[in-house]
């Protein structure tokens, strides 16, 4: 664990000594809960429609596939037509595109970012690497099966998938969301212990709280 994360005594400017435990003080350690959908079916349907038509992608490229997301913003593919936009902060995003191979080091950051996103949230795995390891099946530091660590709503196969495939995948995701079938966040909360055990099995230097709100 890094020195700045360790429990320690600090002397304040007024001379009072107090104890700081960064992992407990700076983070909230409440675990995620399964969130009920809205009580009225029609309201939930409206929200699901809005969620499907307004997909905000977290701008976090984890592997080579990230290069295929940039063309989506260009005139040729223009994903904005479909209500797909990019947000620079996990707080405002609701779709996490794991773009390709995921090294253990990145996985740690991915988990933190994913947990900061708000329910409902979706995960799309891009490329064979997220699906079964792809050409990094024998690598010493990339995971081979994303759905062991995060709830994945949809995979887009290929090495690497073309932007058209991404668009098709996003449209498919929209159908899932509208049908109310994309409940990854709740799945994550329900099987939290299982996901955490899997994550901790590969991430050895776990120096963060179990849930980063």
């Amino acid at each position, binding site marked *: 664990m890094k020195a700045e994360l360790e429990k320690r005594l600090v002397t304040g400017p007024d001379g009072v000594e107090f104890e700081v435990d960064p992992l407990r003080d700076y983070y909230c350690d409440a675990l995620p809960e399964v969130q009920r959908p809205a009580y009225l079916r029609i309201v939930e349907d409206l*929200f699901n429609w809005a*969620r499907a038509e307004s997909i905000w992608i977290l*701008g976090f490229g984890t592997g080579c596939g990230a290069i295929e997301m940039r063309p989506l913003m260009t005139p040729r593919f223009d994903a904005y037509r479909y*209500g797909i936009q*990019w*947000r*620079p902060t996990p*707080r405002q995003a609701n779709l996490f595109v794991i773009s390709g191979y995921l090294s253990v080091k990145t996985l740690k950051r991915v988990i933190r970012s994913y947990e900061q996103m*708000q329910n*409902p949230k979706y995960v799309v795995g891009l490329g064979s690497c997220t699906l079964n390891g792809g050409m990094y099946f024998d690598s010493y530091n990339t995971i081979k099966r994303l759905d062991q660590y995060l709830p994945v709503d949809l995979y887009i196969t290929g090495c690497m998938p073309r932007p058209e495939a991404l668009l098709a995948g996003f449209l498919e995701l929209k159908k899932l969301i509208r049908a109310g079938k994309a409940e990854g966040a709740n799945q994550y909360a329900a099987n939290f212990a299982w996901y955490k055990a899997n994550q901790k099995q590969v991430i050895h230097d776990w120096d963060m709280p179990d849930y980063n709100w």
Partner: protein
Amino acid sequence: MSFDWMRIPWSLVTLFIVFNYGLLLNALIAKIAARVGRRHGIPLWQNYVDLIKNYGQRTTISHGVHFYLGPVFRLTGGIGLLLFVPTLYGSAYFANLSFAGDLILALYFVFFGTLGMALGAGESGHPYAALGVSRGLSQVTAAELPFALAVFAVALQYQTLSVTEIVAAQQGGIHHWTLFTNPLAVAAAMLSFLGSMMRPPFDLVLAPQEIPIGPPTEYHSSYLALLQTNRAIFPIAKVVIYMNLFFGGATNWPVFFLKVFLITMVSVVVGVVSPRFRVEQSIRWFLIWAVPIGILAILWV
């Protein structure tokens, strides 16, 4: 003067109209920017969808009281600005809550939201938010200077601090507009306008590509939706002030829509063809180009 209670529902109607107009206008602006880049861009109704979605997110996280209050202050700033100046001149219904000294209050409200955001974003504890706020405050302050000078010039010119009276003095033909009676003030104010609309070249504070998205970094779900609501109302409210002070106000809704659209387009047209200034560059720009014009405008009156 007794208070006319019927003003309240009419103000709400104003708010409703302006809110929808603002959402559509924002989408239209995004579309124009997209067309300049040869894209199709977002659909016109995208902002509504985004808004519903953000209100519909199931979880929110709070960082404390000020974190709540930030978006509320911001929205108060927008709505207050809108309601304390007459939206339509000469209309009994849409004069809103304007009163004799409203110009000063309006100036204050322009700043109010930013200050509220500073509190809220500071409480979120995110370093990027604090950074964004300090950039935002310095830039808005610099942009506000020429505007304040221009407003004083106009107030001196018409010897009043009431927006209604200023509009009244501009009626009776295009040549009565401040635009022609005091072009220097208008020039200074329009330069400041570029800066306060958060479009390029002065959009560093809120640009997603910069220190991620600036002050609202931590805002999400319904907080963000509140901020988005404000993004629809606030620019229009600001444009209304410009319209009233410099461009003769509006006497009915079509004229209102047209004038607001045209004034907004000034910043959009400048925006789509400009690269982005850094904060210190934009401050320098305001101090060198806009402030002297504002001072001249005061001297000229």
